[in-house]
């Protein structure tokens, strides 16, 4: 399997993990280890001064893991820049999953603010991985603005509905000059494999693992699915539907005989 390179850094695993919704930090840590993931997202929250709690960071800090702070909760580009600066300070990394979703119901990304924020953050020296709509033109614009990857959604976040945007993802993958990470909507290992077979560079999975009956075994299943899908892509997929025969009758090409 080819290594994945983002902003000059190389990754052996093409499975990125989100850390939300796990029943416990211990379970999350085990799931991450089992998944083999080398890129793990982390959110930020205000410290509750009265109720000190377990520090989740220690469960995900590991030399092989690139922390990917997200900007979840911000509603526009200005807030995103602030959140990014806080994240860089708190976690000591300039990597950033940029997500701007002003809509609290479906958490759909705001394309216009995302592009604006990408432009600003790149200038401020961040490695920006924007979560975005599966919009091929937007993805080119983000790339031109200096995004290190694009992270188009497969389906609304948390829905586990799979690659509802497949036709657009295919165009994005074909056109992109940066890695394409399919984010959001991947609900099962088969979805992850499908994205990898399409030629996605990586997938980001959270809910599907976190809420599984056994998250650790599900993390293992995703690891295998992502590897299988990527291997299939690199090996050159055979046709599954069409079975072309060499054609003896030649109505269109008789003039060439």
């Amino acid at each position, binding site marked *: 399997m080819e290594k994945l390179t983002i902003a000059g850094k190389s990754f052996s695993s093409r499975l990125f993990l989100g850390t939300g919704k796990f029943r416990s930090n211990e379970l999350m840590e085990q799931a991450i280890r089992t998944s083999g993931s080398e890129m793990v997202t982390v959110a930020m929250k205000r410290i509750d001064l009265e109720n000190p709690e377990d520090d989740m960071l220690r469960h995900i800090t590991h030399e092989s893991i690139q922390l990917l702070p997200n900007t979840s909760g911000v509603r526009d580009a200005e807030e995103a820049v602030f959140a990014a600066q806080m994240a860089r300070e708190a976690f000591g990394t300039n990597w950033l999953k940029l997500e701007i979703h002003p809509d609290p119901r479906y958490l759909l990304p705001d394309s216009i603010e995302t592009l604006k924020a990408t432009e600003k953050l790149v200038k401020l020296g961040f490695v920006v991985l924007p979560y975005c709509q599966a919009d091929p033109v937007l993805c080119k614009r983000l790339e031109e603005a200096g995004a290190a990857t694009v992270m188009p959604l497969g389906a609304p976040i948390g829905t586990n509905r799979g690659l509802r945007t497949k036709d657009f993802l295919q165009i994005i993958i074909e056109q992109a000059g940066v890695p394409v990470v399919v984010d959001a909507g991947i609900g099962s290992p088969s979805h992850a494999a499908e994205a990898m077979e399409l030629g996605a560079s990586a997938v980001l999975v959270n809910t599907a693992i976190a809420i599984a009956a056994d998250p650790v075994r599900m993390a293992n299943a995703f690891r295998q699915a992502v590897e299988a899908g990527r291997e299939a892509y690199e090996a050159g997929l*055979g*046709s*599954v539907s069409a079975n072309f025969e060499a054609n003896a009758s030649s109505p269109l090409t008789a003039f*060439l005989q």
Partner: protein
Amino acid sequence: MFSEVLEKIDWDATTEAIYAKSDADVRRALAKNHLDVEDFMALISPAAEPYLETMAQLSYRYTRERFGNTMQIFIPLYITNSCTNSCVYCGFHVSNPMKRTILTEEEMVNEYKAIKKLGPFENLLIVTGENPVKAGVPYIARSLDLARPYFSNLKIEVMPLSVEEYEELTHHGMNGVICFQETYHKANYNIYHPRGMKSNFEWRVNGFDRMGQAGVHSIGMGVLVGLEKEWRTDITMMAYHLRYLQKHYWKTKYSFNFPRMRPSENGGFQPNVVMSDRELAQVTFATRIFDHDVDISYSTRESASFRNHMARLGVTTMSAESKTDPGGYYSYPQALEQFHVSDERKTGEVAAALRALGIEPVWKDWDQSFDELTCRK
């Protein structure tokens, strides 16, 4: 720049890979909707020959899906055959002791008027040799200015220019550029183009990047089939080039040309290889299956009968009644041609033949007033 990408693609290994393509590779390519260059190599390889009819049917289908039942029609005008290059295969070669013509402004206008009498042409391709001193960018700009009252869409086929020069010409109404790389084989390129400005391979091959950077709307590419014995490899390099350009300059439209050389009857340059009709058809089908959107252009180098047959099967742009000598429509009707025209039909005959095939000739699909904003900038 594409020259850096090209350096990493080994010519001989690519040739070997094309000949190693198998039946299974061809089937896989035919089944895909989004093909990569490896698939394209399979489709132009000998392994795909038994699938020619299947490829024709797919090419027919994709072309109709994307372009409808239409054919863009254009006409070229050579405004000068003055040239400082020594391309060994070209009639306008600098040491060829022929009379050189640089059309005056009055002559240009006479040509434009004469073209409008041949048919309702709105797409004009202005062609020059390479003589930056006597027929450089200001001269080309002037030809565009004078053409604008007569034509809606102006393209140029001239020497590679700088980004600034391309930008400058868009301000004069230039909407597209055609430039043939001739060959992507660098070492041999230097043999075919021993002297003159054209001998700089990188300047030419990176010209397409400069067009893209200048925001040129439409870029035409071409390999001169007949130079390299392994024309399949050359065309594969063009496919890599297309994918590269599409990624970097994604707002631009691209077209492919496959000018093929014929054996010379009067002792001129003899092509190293002659591509058959069947091979050209295969490459045309493969191109359409590889890229459903790329424009495929056939000039009057091709015979009337071949153009008629291929009109439904992938070709989306054709010229008609072309003269390939400067001033050939009015001022100097007998001058020496750059290449021999096979299809000598009148414009009306070409259009009627297309209509009989159920294809509507499109004379105009762009008006330069759309570009006025750009021009003002």
